[in-house]
């Protein structure tokens, strides 16, 4: 088993590590510094920033086997393997990415990038601002999916990757993949968009707004500059996460997991007739919220939910999604899950319809899975089987490219 690390000026260095079958093993975060100002959708710029990345597999000589994995709201660049600084910390898409897995690191060079504004190593609101030496806090600019794509493209430049074999992601990650295909079409051969949407609905925005209000109205928020007060709006962030979490699960999933089971009923199964934890589902949500509030930055939560709200590539084409997608030249794979009500199959079908209208290459699968939006993170034989088949096709295109000079001397 080998794990590869990327240095800033070399493509890949092979470093053998002991590992487990199907795992990329122990992985180290790499930090890339950028000093060229990054123009943002808001009109602002970030002059200098750092991005945390992980890579798995080896970039081939033609730099044609690179896969970019874009992360969703609360994930990071730690896509697969065990984090070197915490071996219990397994990558969020480890069931998909690894040697012999659907995104096979024996074949592909896979990159995970922590997005700008996030809180897992890349420059974000909690980072110290170069100009002041103090945390950015409320001064950190609002970012968009397009800004992230621009920043990710600079990582690709640094690694010498002109064109990705595939850019992929689920949920918000899928939006980034879609944005890549639209804004940098020549750099994306395949675009894999899972459980995503071309824009948030009013209901989606509403949930985000509830989450943001929970954070902003927490007395510990201090207008976003809570770092200076040595505190964090933990309660607000916890409630925000609870709201978000509800939207990730299906009604059936929740019914099956918790039903109306009482947490610690009074004698004879009676209610407590109070406002403490009465039902299992409450206990679960509180636990999830509190856990989240211990490791996630509240300003990042605001920033990312806003980026979700703003994403709408068809805004530039008067709502015409087909027109917005027209520049894309990638081969698309879209996948949705039947019980996902956050980004329902209808959202994916809308993208499929637009791609079909443009006569663009698209494959669409609607997986009948019970786990709601979260299904994109879970192991499902049909879902992973499909991705496996698709990436085998991509792998075949790499061989074609490589073997061409031999066939035609």
């Amino acid at each position, binding site marked *: 088993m080998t794990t590869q690390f990327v240095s800033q000026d070399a493509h890949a260095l092979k470093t053998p590590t002991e590992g487990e079958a199907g795992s990329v093993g122990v992985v180290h975060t790499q930090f890339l510094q950028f000093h060229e100002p990054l123009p943002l959708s808001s009109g602002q710029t970030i002059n200098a920033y750092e991005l945390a990345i992980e890579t798995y597999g080896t970039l081939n000589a033609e730099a044609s086997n690179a896969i970019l994995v874009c992360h969703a709201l609360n994930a990071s660049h730690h896509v697969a393997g065990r984090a070197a600084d915490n071996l219990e910390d397994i990558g969020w898409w480890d069931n998909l990415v690894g040697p012999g897995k659907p995104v096979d690191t024996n074949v592909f060079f896979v990159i995970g990038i922590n997005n700008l504004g996030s809180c897992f190593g890349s420059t974000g609101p909690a980072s110290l601002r170069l100009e002041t030496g103090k945390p950015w806090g409320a001064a950190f600019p609002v970012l968009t999916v397009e800004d992230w794509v621009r920043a990710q493209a600079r990582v690709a430049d640094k690694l010498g990757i002109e064109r990705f074999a595939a850019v992929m992601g689920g949920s918000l990650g899928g939006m980034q993949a879609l944005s890549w295909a639209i804004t940098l079409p020549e750099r994306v051969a395949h675009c894999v968009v899972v459980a995503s949407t071309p824009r948030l609905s009013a209901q989606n925005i509403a949930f985000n707004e509830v989450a943001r209000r929970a954070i902003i109205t927490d007395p510990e928020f201090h207008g976003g500059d809570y770092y200076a007060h040595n505190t964090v709006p933990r309660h607000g962030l916890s409630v925000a996460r609870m709201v978000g979490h509800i939207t990730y699960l299906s009604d059936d999933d929740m019914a099956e997991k918790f039903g109306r089971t009482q947490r610690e009923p009074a004698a004879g199964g009676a209610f407590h007739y109070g406002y403490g934890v009465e039902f299992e589902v409450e206990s679960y949500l509180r636990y999830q919220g509190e856990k989240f509030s211990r490791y996630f930055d509240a300003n990042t939560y605001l920033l990312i939910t806003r980026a979700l709200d703003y994403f709408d590539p068809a805004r530039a084409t008067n709502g015409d999604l087909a027109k917005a997608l027209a520049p894309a030249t990638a081969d698309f794979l879209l996948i949705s899950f039947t019980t996902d009500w956050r980004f329902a199959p209808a959202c994916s079908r809308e993208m499929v319809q637009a791609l*079909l209208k443009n006569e663009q290459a698209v494959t*669409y699968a*609607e997986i009948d899975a019970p786990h709601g939006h979260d299904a994109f993170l879970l192991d499902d034989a049909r879902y992973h089987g499909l991705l496996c*088949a698709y990436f085998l*096709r991509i792998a075949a295109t790499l061989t074609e490219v490589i073997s061409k000079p031999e066939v035609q001397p």
Partner: protein
Amino acid sequence: MSHETSATSRASAVGQTLAIRQASPTGQARLVSEMSTPQVADLRGDLARIAQWVQPQTRVLDLGCGDGTLLAHLKRSKSVQGIGVEISDARVLSCVQRGVHVIQQNLEDGLAMFDDQQFDTVVLSQTLQSMHNTEHILREMTRVAREAIVSFPNFGYWPHGWSILLGRMPVTGQMPYDWHDTPNIHLCTLKDFERLSHKLGFSILERATFNDQREVKFLAGWRSTLAAYRFTADRSTPPRSRA
């Protein structure tokens, strides 16, 4: 209709493929001699004919595309830009494995995903008889494509009548299901289909009829087990060139 005779060198290899696919060895011999142009040899009889009807470098929609056999063949032999619609998870997976673009969808939900006249040809092979809303799907086909092709089992095949005379619903090779356990809810004869086409204002451009993969022309209404039709809603539409 004349069949191209195949190169003998290919025939044995082709025969080997067919031996796996065909139950009857005699049928196999017929197939090799009658329809094995090198490209279509490994296709089911009606699919081979459908493939012949499709023009090179056109856009084809295959409804109920199964494992993508027809589209993979059309892509390889005619540079056709194809897309399939399929409901089954396993068959969608097969399509992806073959490199065939596929949309997972229930055909009963209609073709709203597709624009008017988005395709040159739309194919519905051996699926019409199991659809609930027959007229709707046929109309939808002529909406999304310039030309439509359907194939279906012929209920008018003479042993079916014999079976009914003997008091039993027919169970034959093309329709191997018992009456109480069949996906076939809208069976018809050639004449029935032609009447419906007329009612819907379609012009039938071509018809091909088969018995056990072999084409039959004489008394086709009785002797064929399977029929394929190529039709259009408006015969005056000039063919769209995409080369």
